[in-house]
């Protein structure tokens, strides 16, 4: 494929490790970059990688006029929203397009369609994908009792506009139902400004499997295979891998093809990920993320392709960079999310007195850390992604564990030791992960108190 033309200039409307990822892509593709940053992030070293940097506010990466103005005064032709922040804001996608720039992502209408999880369920169901049994769209308070009765416990209360594990509650006991609804609504209202919710049958011991797709916006769609992200705590992914292990290849391929068909039908544009729960040989759609995902590197490592480059290509050329046959898979890649958090999962911001990343064959590190960096308390606790590629799953697992052991992050607490413990569990080694196994692991065996070495 040809690289996007170098005359283009990209505003990176994000921060942290994903800003680093996007800056690297710009450098490698010969695209000029402008980094939007806040006063809180003014010390971030990656800002020096950009051709230009523009301060957009005190601490806010959600200010649409500020982002658009920053792009305009710096002569940008494209905006990449990364993940989180404005990445799934249809208003932002619309504003970027109206301002005459390329939004590196899908059309606003598809962001809106998939952003309302209740509508997304109905849409993909119509497109031929099976969804988790549950309410048709949004649920009104009066319908709750009869619906829960019909589905049977346990159920999952989900905010229509939730995400990242917020606005979700599992109900095992009918007595908890009202409390769970109120909590999920309050959380969703606080985080997303909407309190609408829907109800799904809760599938215990399921696996989280997802399919990465890329569309040209005209009906041509390809997939990048599957990822497995069952290793979660409170619906937050901790370890992801590609391809999804231990599931019949024909079954996975069939799922990917169905996703391609569905996305082709709606003429989806740019990168997206359809997420499923897998239980008893069946895949059930849960939601779609209309953006680049945190765990995209595992797919890049097993395909040798650059998903950000593909995103830029689609935006600039309105066509796919390659055919489905060009997407070939080799080996297994596993990613760990290093979070700045204490052993009891509380955020642990502060000064990183020493940072030393790992290396060696098959190791990739996506991080904005450096020795002397102060992790701000204002943002997400993700500070580094360590990804290992191996010829098979066990090789990747061992390489990742070795890389985690090598990683030095002093001065703040991180979840590194928990990640190493998870990698060593029989469940993980033998491919028996489920969305609940980390919770059980932590519950059965309380984490040791930190001994002073925060590493």
């Amino acid at each position: 494929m040809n690289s996007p033309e170098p005359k283009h200039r990209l505003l990176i409307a994000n921060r942290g490790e994903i800003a680093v990822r996007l800056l690297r892509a710009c450098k490698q593709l010969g695209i000029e970059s402008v980094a939007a940053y806040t006063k809180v992030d003014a010390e971030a070293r990656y800002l020096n990688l950009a051709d230009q940097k523009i301060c957009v506010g005190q601490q806010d990466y959600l200010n649409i006029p500020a982002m658009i103005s920053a792009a305009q005064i710096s002569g940008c032709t494209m905006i990449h929203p990364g993940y989180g922040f404005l990445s799934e804001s249809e208003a932002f996608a619309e504003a970027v397009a109206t301002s005459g720039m390329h939004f590196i992502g899908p059309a606003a209408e598809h962001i809106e369609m998939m952003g309302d999880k209740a509508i997304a369920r109905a849409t993909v169901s119509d497109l031929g994908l099976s969804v988790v049994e549950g309410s048709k769209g949004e649920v009104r308070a009066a319908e709750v009792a009869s619906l829960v009765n019909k589905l049977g416990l346990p159920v999952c209360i989900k905010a229509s506009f939730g995400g990242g594990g917020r606005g979700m509650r599992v109900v095992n006991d009918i007595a908890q139902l009202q409390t769970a609804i109120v909590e999920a609504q309050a959380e969703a209202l606080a985080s997303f400004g909407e309190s609408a919710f829907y109800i799904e049958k809760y599938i215990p011991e399921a696996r989280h499997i997802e399919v990465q797709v890329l569309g040209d916006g005209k009906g041509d769609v390809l997939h990048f295979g599957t990822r497995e992200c069952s290793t979660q705590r409170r619906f937050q992914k901790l370890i992801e891998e590609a391809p999804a292990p231990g599931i019949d290849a024909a079954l996975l391929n069939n799922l990917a093809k169905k996703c391609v068909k569905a996305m082709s039908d709606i003429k989806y544009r740019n990168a997206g990920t359809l997420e499923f729960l897998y239980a008893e040989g069946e895949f059930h759609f849960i939601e779609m993320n209309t953006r680049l995902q945190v765990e995209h590197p595992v797919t890049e490592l097993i395909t040798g392709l650059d998903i950000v480059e593909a995103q830029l290509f689609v935006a600039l050329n309105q066509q796919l960079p390659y055919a489905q046959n060009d997407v070939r898979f080799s080996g297994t890649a596993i990613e760990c999310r290093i979070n700045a958090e204490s052993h009891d999962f509380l955020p642990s911001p502060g000064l990183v007195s020493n940072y030393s990343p790992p290396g060696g064959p098959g190791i990739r590190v996506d991080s904005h850390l450096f020795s002397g960096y102060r992790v701000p308390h204002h943002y997400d606790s993700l500070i580094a992604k360590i990804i290992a590629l191996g010829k098979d799953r066990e090789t990747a697992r061992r390489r990742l564990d070795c890389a985690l052991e090598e990683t030095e992050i002093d001065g703040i607490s991180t979840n590194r030791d928990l990640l190493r413990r998870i990698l060593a569990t029989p469940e993980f080694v033998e491919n028996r992960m489920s969305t609940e196994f980390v919770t059980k692991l932590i519950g059965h065996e309380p984490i040791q108190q930190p001994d002073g070495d925060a590493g």
Partner: protein
Amino acid sequence: MDIRKVKKLIEMMQESDLGEIEIKEGDDSVRISRASKASNSPIVTSAQQYVVADPSQSAQPSVSGRRLAPRTAKKLVPDSSEHPQRSPDTPTTRPRGSVRSSEWATTPEITGHVTVTAPMVGTFYRAADPDAEPFVTKGQQIKQGDTLCIIESMKMMNRITSEHAGTLDEVLVENATGVEYDQPLFVIKPSS
């Protein structure tokens, strides 16, 4: 360049008779020069940079550096107050109204000079339209509430008004250029 290094250089200069010093380190360079005792204006050696010098502290070095971050540059001014924390979405909630500059980042200095900084990222205009006179010019007396400039953001014209009465000492930004959040725009010498 490491801010501690710059601070050290300033301290060294203050202890010496040097009038100016320029240090290069790779792509970074910083020049520190001492304003003459007679001068009442800050020394601005690079128009692209946010040079914030304390004009009346004549012995105080002013600093300009090619790649100094605005924040770094500002720290060099002995400011007596931190910027108040504000709601991050304030600019969007006030699309057309006037924004009182003091709510954002006026930086009272030891001598009472204040720097008015941009409350939002956008395009800076000194006049209401291209043919009109500038709202304010250097040396002009300013009343509290006077319009200093307009910052355009997504076709919204945001009027920036003065919180202070006094004399306009410096206009730090060219008309019709882009300004980033918290970029110094004006220096005002309050009348009291």
